[in-house]
């Protein structure tokens, strides 16, 4: 095994710059997935809790499929399915974000459902007798308590998502993992993997810190 980068700062910097390009794509998948899957997960959670069977049964089935099959398989499936069935060829990046959003929405939905059910029924009743509408009760009284309840579990999902973005490489999205693999095979050195490890750790270090701050801010029982 040869050392090609770590003994040469100029080459190492060159490699790092190439890989930072991949970090941009990784971040793109990460941020777009969160923006899409969190509101979608909220809707799925409400559908799952609906008293109407015609709604809750298909939603439960959707959650079952998304959580019961490998995310890698879902990405591949959607890539081939969407490429063949859409009138235009979708971008690889868009397909990854699409698959991730659907998958993560299912996980978020179950987390949100637990968080909503953990709010005592008396909170809703207090809202009702004070004259809040149902929508007001939901957003002013229930949601702030749900946010506090679910933040630790959501933090877990966020950290998993940073790593799951690597699955983009399976359909050749040029994100951090793809670039690392390519650099390793070009250079016959594992140093690009080491750089990738450090970059993933850096991303998750930042994510974890942001989540911890949010958890602290939202925890009204520790004020």
């Amino acid at each position, binding site marked *: 095994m040869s050392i090609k980068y770590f003994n040469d700062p100029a080459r190492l910097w060159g490699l790092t710059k190439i890989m930072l390009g991949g970090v941009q794509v990784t971040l793109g998948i990460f941020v777009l997935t969160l923006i899409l899957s969190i509101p979608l997960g909220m809707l799925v959670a409400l559908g799952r809790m609906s008293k109407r069977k015609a709604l809750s049964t298909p939603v439960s089935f959707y959650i079952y499929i998304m959580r019961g099959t490998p995310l890698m398989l879902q990405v591949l499936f959607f890539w081939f399915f969407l490429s063949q069935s859409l009138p235009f060829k979708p971008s690889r990046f868009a397909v990854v974000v699409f698959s991730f959003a659907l998958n993560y929405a299912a996980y978020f939905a179950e987390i949100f459902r637990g968080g909503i059910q953990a709010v005592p029924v008396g909170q809703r*009743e207090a809202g*009702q007798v004070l004259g809040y509408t149902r929508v007001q009760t939901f957003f*002013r009284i229930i949601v*702030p308590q749900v946010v506090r309840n679910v933040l630790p579990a959501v933090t877990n999902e966020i950290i998993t998502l940073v790593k799951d973005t690597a699955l983009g490489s399976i359909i050749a999205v040029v994100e951090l993992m793809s670039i690392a693999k390519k650099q390793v095979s070009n250079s016959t050195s594992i140093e690009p993997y080491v750089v990738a490890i450090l970059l993933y750790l850096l991303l998750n270090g930042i994510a974890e810190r942001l989540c911890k701050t949010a958890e602290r801010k939202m925890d009204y029982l520790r004020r």
Partner: protein
Amino acid sequence: MLNAENVRKRFAANEVLRGISLNVEKGEVVSLIGPSGSGKSTFLRCLNRLETIDEGTITLDDDVMCEMRGGALHYADSKTLRRITLKMGMVFQSFNLFPHMTVLRNLTDAPVAVRRLPRSQAEEKARMLLAKVGLADKADSYPHQLSGGQSQRVAIARALCMDPEIMCFDEPTSALDPELTQEVLNVMQDLAKEKMTMVVVTHEMRFARNVSDRVVLIENGGIVEEGTAEQVFTSQNPRTRQFIGEAQG
């Protein structure tokens, strides 16, 4: 002012209210007493629509909440129901304060969001009410920092902040230690002196006897006896005597 006639309610096969009628006049304090599971809390919850009834008529002032028409029960349109809701205040056994809001915000949020009161005006009123229940210094605390008695006094102030015409209390002291019970009862007694109309479900016999204008004994979903506190507490009805004897220990 508040009138309920022949209210019936069942949970599955279990008939919990077997035709209860109650009329509450303006400024009157009515205590509903009775053994656990008698239906008195359910009846109170029907009055402010936390439960729906199966049969009967409930009216508040000129507004009909629900009535029988052609043998079937009809609830009023949402606008009327809303008007009724806003005239009624409710205090729960478990306080149900909003844990993510400060005490002050617990009082002001509904007046601002529901009644569209300017925030400054709502806060002024809230501070006045907190002072009245002896908790002016707790405005910026969170509910988890309060004792049970303090929580319940905040809950009473929160209900009052909406300017209700009638206050309902569902066993307001049942979750409290004896020492804390008294501070809540004192606040309720002050309200009664100010001629607030009150319907109180309670196990506190001293409160029922000394503060209420009228006492209603409920058992098995029906009224056993109803009268002034003195009448009920000195009743010769054997069932009433038995319950009051047991309740007073």
